[in-house]
């Protein structure tokens, strides 16, 4: 009897494995699965992945009101910190291309995000890479005015980054 059970278990496991394996090619028919890239920084998220996948919008909503209205700027649950860790290495952003962290899942789930109408999608500190560093950046258009040419909006965008 025992031997029969063990055999049954082996058969079931093999079947399960085979089924799991067959899922990969089968998905080509459905919507492409989101690309979830591991965060560039840190070992793990501020909460377990399962919790974050279901509840990130709730914690962000709670934190945003505390920050805007009361001025509490703790790092846990801060959108800025999400971006700092999850910005893609390729685009430097969480929402610039379709494989970037936020956009990837949101387009799969067909949920529109409007965070980035106002919030920057790029982490802080990329300023240091700009030829004008934080010390001199606010003189950029002064220098340009002296040189007799207007600063384009693209350049301003560069400074803003």
């Amino acid at each position, binding site marked *: 009897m025992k031997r029969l059970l063990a055999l049954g278990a082996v058969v079931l496991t093999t079947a399960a494995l085979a089924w799991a394996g067959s899922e990969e090619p089968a998905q080509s028919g459905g919507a492409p699965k989101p690309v979830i890239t591991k965060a560039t920084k840190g070992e793990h998220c501020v909460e377990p992945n399962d919790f974050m996948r279901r509840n990130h919008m709730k914690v962000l909503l709670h934190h945003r009101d505390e920050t805007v209205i009361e*001025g509490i700027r703790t790092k846990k649950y801060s959108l800025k910190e999400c971006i700092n860790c999850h910005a893609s290495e390729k685009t430097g952003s969480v929402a610039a291309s379709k494989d970037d962290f936020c956009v990837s899942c949101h387009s799969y789930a067909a949920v529109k995000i409007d965070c980035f109408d106002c*919030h*920057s999608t790029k982490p802080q500190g990329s300023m240091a890479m700009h030829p004008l560093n934080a010390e001199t950046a606010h003189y950029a*258009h002064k220098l340009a005015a002296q040189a007799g040419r207007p600063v384009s909006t693209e350049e301003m965008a560069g400074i803003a980054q």
Partner: protein
Amino acid sequence: MSDTKMSDNTPDSPERRRFISTATVAAGVTLVPGVMLVEVAQGRPEDQPASSAVRWGMLIDATKCASGCDDCVSACSTENGWTPVAESKHPTQAPQWIRKLELQDPLTQGQTNLPMLCQHCAEPPCVDVCPTGASFKRDDGIVLVNRHICIGCRYCMMACPYKARSLVHEPLNDTQKPDVPRGIGCVEACTFCVQKVDRGDGTTACAEACAKSGNNAILFGDMNDPESEISKRLRELPTKQVRADLNLNLGVRYHGI
């Protein structure tokens, strides 16, 4: 105008000496525990809400504000990521958080220079008229717009006696600064560099730029703290509130207008 410093703290002045001695004592006390040092350096801890024990304010000395200088305006636009009007595609509707005004008395031809920005009223008309509660005054006296609930109706712009608010008309296409979210369809104005204040810098981009230019016309600080530099200067100097008749109790005071 030859005296370019905000206060006449010559190396020998007793006021400066008093300040230095108290500052040294304070530093000595805080250096020993180690933890205190961080608190002093960063101001309010990040998990604490803004407190009404503080009221942020600004003293602008119009007699030191130089004609033709707009360093405060450029510094503000750089810090907060708004495009300067001169570079805007639509200058008439471009957001302006701070404007440089050059006024001339038609009778005497006397000229006055001053920056005009949100006056951070204690009784702000923009907050009174806001239909959604997006326009609000934070506990430390900074008047802000909660962009999450602003519907862009612009009542606050009409209510403001100082023309201090702007609406963002154009999509900003991810040109915002990470610290300063702002976007199309929302009203915005000077925030007293709230991101810097919360970081504990204790100053604003315009005040820093003005000091750097050597004019020292802008002084930022806590008006509730009687020992702060701004409180001391406000006690000494005759200052005015713009449109004082409206009884709004402004956070920005002008000297020499």
